[in-house]
């Protein structure tokens, strides 16, 4: 086995293992820390896809920013740190049937389909400048709309979180 393949599997195992801990852990702090490793593993896979800019963004924003924010959020609402969140499972049988059917279908598709692959070599060694030109050229509209989506999320979060004065 090539070194390349081995490293890929290492990252895959990190991602999946950490994701499993996020889902199954009953302790929210542990889940938040596991999320950090899941994001890190995904960043590694981006590197394998030669998406250097996305990989760095993933590290900076998800691993560095979002996970830390999640941890802060968890710790500041400290009443919940010691409390086990309700993680009961209901409707196990239908859920198992549905998810395994879906998983089976998707795995089947991934094995059987001829995915469209391009033989073109990459235009340049780094993708950042090409991405920048695309984002401010043909894709300027999605770029701007995304800022609007974030703005709405921000306003909404402030609105939901703001303390109301008790009506006197």
């Amino acid at each position, binding site marked *: 086995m090539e070194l390349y393949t081995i490293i890929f599997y290492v990252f895959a195992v990190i991602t999946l293992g950490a994701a499993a801990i996020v889902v199954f852990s009953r302790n929210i702090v542990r889940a938040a820390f596991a999320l950090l490793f899941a994001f890190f593993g995904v960043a590694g896979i981006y590197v394998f896809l030669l998406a250097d800019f996305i990989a760095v963004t993933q590290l900076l924003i998800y691993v560095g920013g979002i996970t830390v924010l999640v941890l802060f959020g968890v710790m500041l609402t400290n009443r919940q740190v010691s409390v086990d969140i309700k993680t009961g499972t209901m409707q196990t049988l239908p859920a198992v049937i549905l998810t395994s059917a879906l998983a089976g279908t998707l795995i089947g598709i991934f094995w059987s*389909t001829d995915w*469209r692959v391009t033989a073109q070599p990459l235009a340049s060694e780094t993708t950042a400048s090409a991405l920048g030109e695309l984002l401010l050229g*043909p894709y*300027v509209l999605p770029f701007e709309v995304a800022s609007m989506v974030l703005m*709405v999320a921000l306003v909404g979060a402030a*609105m939901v979180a703001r303390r109301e004065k008790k009506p006197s």
Partner: protein
Amino acid sequence: MMLTSILESIATFVPETVLVATFCVTLVSGLIARRKPAVPAALAFVGMLVTLWAVLQQAGTDRTIFSGLLAVDPFAVFFKGIVTVTTLFILLFSYFSTEVQTSVRRLAEYYALITAMALGMFLMAGANNMLMMVLGMELTSLSSYILAGFTKEASDSSEASLKYIIYGALSSGLMLYGISILFGLTGTLGFADLNHAIANAVPNYFALLVATILIIAGFGYKISAVPFHFWTPDVYEGAPVTITAFLSVASKAAGFAMLMRFFKVVFIDTSVLALPAGMWASLYGFEWNKLLAVLSVLTMTLGNLVAVWQNNLKRLLAYSSIAHAGYMLMGIVVLSDKGLAAVLLYFIVYLFMNLGAFYVVMLVADRTGSEDIDSYKGLGYRAPLLGVAMAIFLVSLTGLPPTAGFIGKLYLFAALLDARWIWLAIVGAINSVISLYYYARVFRNMFLRDPEGQATPVSIGRAQTVLLLVLLVPTLLFGLYFSPLVDLANASLVMVGVR
């Protein structure tokens, strides 16, 4: 080169630009005029009027802008018009709604988010690329999650908001997964390019089918089609009535616009010519329309059958709106221009009758404090105008003459019979009969039952009466004089990239 094309695109992007400006101005005005909730309301209303003007200016345009990402064609303009008119009505409803006006400190955000939601729906109506589709949907959904939980003092409002987010996250996840499969098959996200890619090389049929089903999950969630409807009753009941009415008309219209454009542009087979005028064929006989037919039958049947048991009027109208999504899906199943025109026509009619019904529910709830069907006992005598108006809206929702709802249903069924989808037409007709039963329960309470105990008259102000008449008159008028609507619907079928 790129710059000139972008500048040119911006010139055809006026309505959306006005909406963004309205959003910002409304938001900031709330910070300046803290104690005057009328200021943001007025700004939002003026902004929407300007938007309406800008949308009307676009009539007749038929092109794509921003490198083909967004279509500005009669089809998109039609749905933008529907969304704008609905938004104007909702702003007026909000102004009269006690439920909304009690949260003075958050009103500016409320109005701003309504304009943001309208922007999201504009993008959905024009999306000619799956990227724009997803972004428009996310913008609409995010705003509506927050607005559904607007009256956060009420626990059912917060519950509605949370349920909405969870279902929304799941279905947009499914949809994105479907889109990723489609991208893997074709290597493109643009609708027209997808059509070429699928037409030129037969993809893995099974993968295409699964991708389509996953994408339908996203659409189904937006138009609340069964089995993606679970959020609808709880959200409609928990959200403020104004937002419920907004979701039931505008959000559904945008979802339908996206669905129709996606299926028509991506799967149309332009090489098949031996068809009657106004019909089209699907690529490789890929029968996505059969999927939608199943969805349509499930949606209307479940919506109508469950509505029979509802005692909360908002919940009843929620199930009725699910059923209406089912009726409208029938128009898409037939793969004909006539079917699509019927759906467009239905939306004009649906706008007035459904907003009207929700408006009456809002007025009654503000005065009696109850949305329960029992609180409508004797309403016909306590508030004759409200009672009669509600009766007319409900008759129209059932689809009986001489109301506009009849015309909507008539054209839908005519399109079905034209395309020989007899069994679906029969199912639709049976469903209309079932729906009469639960609408009739409301009539019976309003006119044939005496009020229990408190026979207090329910009175409404002059402005509220005018607004009620603005909704009521078209509901009756369009039942008798509808040829301009039919012409409008037929003229609005033009989609960019499809001849």
